């Protein structure tokens, strides 16, 4: 049963990634936007090197947050206004598979985005990575948490006329702990602070687990409406 759940999820994710590969919206539009956010921060802080280096982890996650919201938005826009519910009915996929599949596709797109953003942050803000393993664990787990949460709220604001403005309002307060934990852990990974970073990875893991569980439970009721 679990194998089936994950298999279907993989199919959903594959479909989403195929759409992305053909349209290249994330690659051509969202990633440049993420980089632009980092550049604009440099303007805002008057290109103050020490300030930017200090703030680099937070600025990285703010970039991920903004760009990620767009990716989630996009992920549900491709389904059409009511498409996902129809797709569910026709395909016979379980809601859980749809949830995990959607989140997985968002996750993969965000990892690509983050690779670009991290390069940008290292180059533009002059930070050095002192703990690569911590860096990778933080971004992977934090991104998984963001993708799972995004999939829940993406479904929640699906088919709503005011989705463009509703989704960020709902999503950003909820992912604030991820931004917080991710930033603190990256501070340690960049050697900016001496605080232990792995504790935050632990918190991020808990958050990710909680939202995975919530999504598996909540996606059914969210999908069966209308």
């Amino acid at each position, binding site marked *: 049963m679990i194998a089936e759940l994950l298999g279907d999820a993989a199919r959903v994710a594959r479909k989403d990634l195929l759409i992305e590969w053909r349209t290249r919206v994330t690659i051509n539009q969202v990633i440049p936007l993420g980089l632009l956010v980092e550049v604009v921060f440099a303007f805002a802080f008057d290109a103050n090197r020490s300030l930017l280096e200090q703030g680099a982890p937070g600025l990285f996650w703010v970039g991920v947050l903004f760009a990620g919201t767009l990716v989630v938005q996009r992920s549900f826009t491709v389904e059409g206004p009511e498409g996902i519910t129809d797709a569910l009915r026709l395909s016979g996929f379980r809601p859980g598979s749809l949830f995990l599949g959607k989140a997985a596709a968002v996750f993969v797109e965000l990892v690509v985005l983050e690779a670009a953003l991290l390069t940008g942050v290292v180059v533009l803000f002059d930070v050095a990575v002192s703990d690569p393993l911590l860096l990778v664990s933080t971004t992977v787990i934090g991104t998984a948490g963001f993708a799972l949460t995004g999939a829940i709220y993406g479904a*929640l604001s699906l088919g709503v006329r*005011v989705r463009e403005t509703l989704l960020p309002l*709902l999503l950003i*307060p909820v992912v604030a*702990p991820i931004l917080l934990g991710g930033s603190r852990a990256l501070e340690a990974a960049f050697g900016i602070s001496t605080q232990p970073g792995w*504790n935050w990875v632990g918190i991020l893991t808990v958050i990710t687990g909680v939202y995975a569980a919530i999504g598996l439970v*909540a996606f059914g009721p*969210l999908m069966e*409406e209308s």
Partner: protein
Amino acid sequence: MSGASDRGDSRHLMTSSVATRVLGWVGLASMAVMALLGLVISPRDRIQGEAVRLLYIHVPTIWVAYGSFILTAVASALYLWRGSSREDRGRHYDRLAGAAGEVAVLFLALTLVTGMLWGRITWGVFWQWDARLTTTALMFVSYLGYLAIRNMPAEIEARSRRAAIAALLAAVNIPIVHFSVEWWRTLHQKASIRSDRNSEITGDMFATLMFSLLAFTLVAAWLMIHRYRLVRLEEIREEEGLALAVSARRAEGVNA
């Protein structure tokens, strides 16, 4: 709010009844007494000075807000659990959740405003990145999102279900935000604010605080009852509007 008078035939629905009128006047009077107690009769605090008077609003409003959020979460859960099985009970829970949620957001806003003013006097700044403040602010924003879902134009049942899920998500999120923010602040600085916030409280002050809690609870109850009835009225209007449109179409069909 027993709801007994609100169910059944819509014609019996009233925007006021004797009980709520009495509640309204008692609430209004108790607010006046509360202002008198808080501003004039209660003594100034030895440590905080006059600023303590703001806490007679700040503390009761957050308690009322928390209580209302719990009510919203419970009613939302009941709506999801029972809503589909029994038609009218379900609507009842949904309306209750909405009314409580809106009142809670209002009271939380008041908590934040009076807290900031209190902070301006006591700390010299409006805002501290204290764990509790940060959590409360995020909570406020996430419930604004909940209200946004409630107010969006959509089919009633679909909207209610989404709103209920959003309310439960927001409730689940409170501890997550709280613990992460708490840990963030304790790692960086000592939580120095909490200790002086609960400075010694004298008998008069305690009495004022408790009376104020009573007054705000009465007002919140009154607001919730009336907000509930307004939701009911809006639903009836939607239904009647639909019925009118249908009959108008029918009439067109007959004439054609």
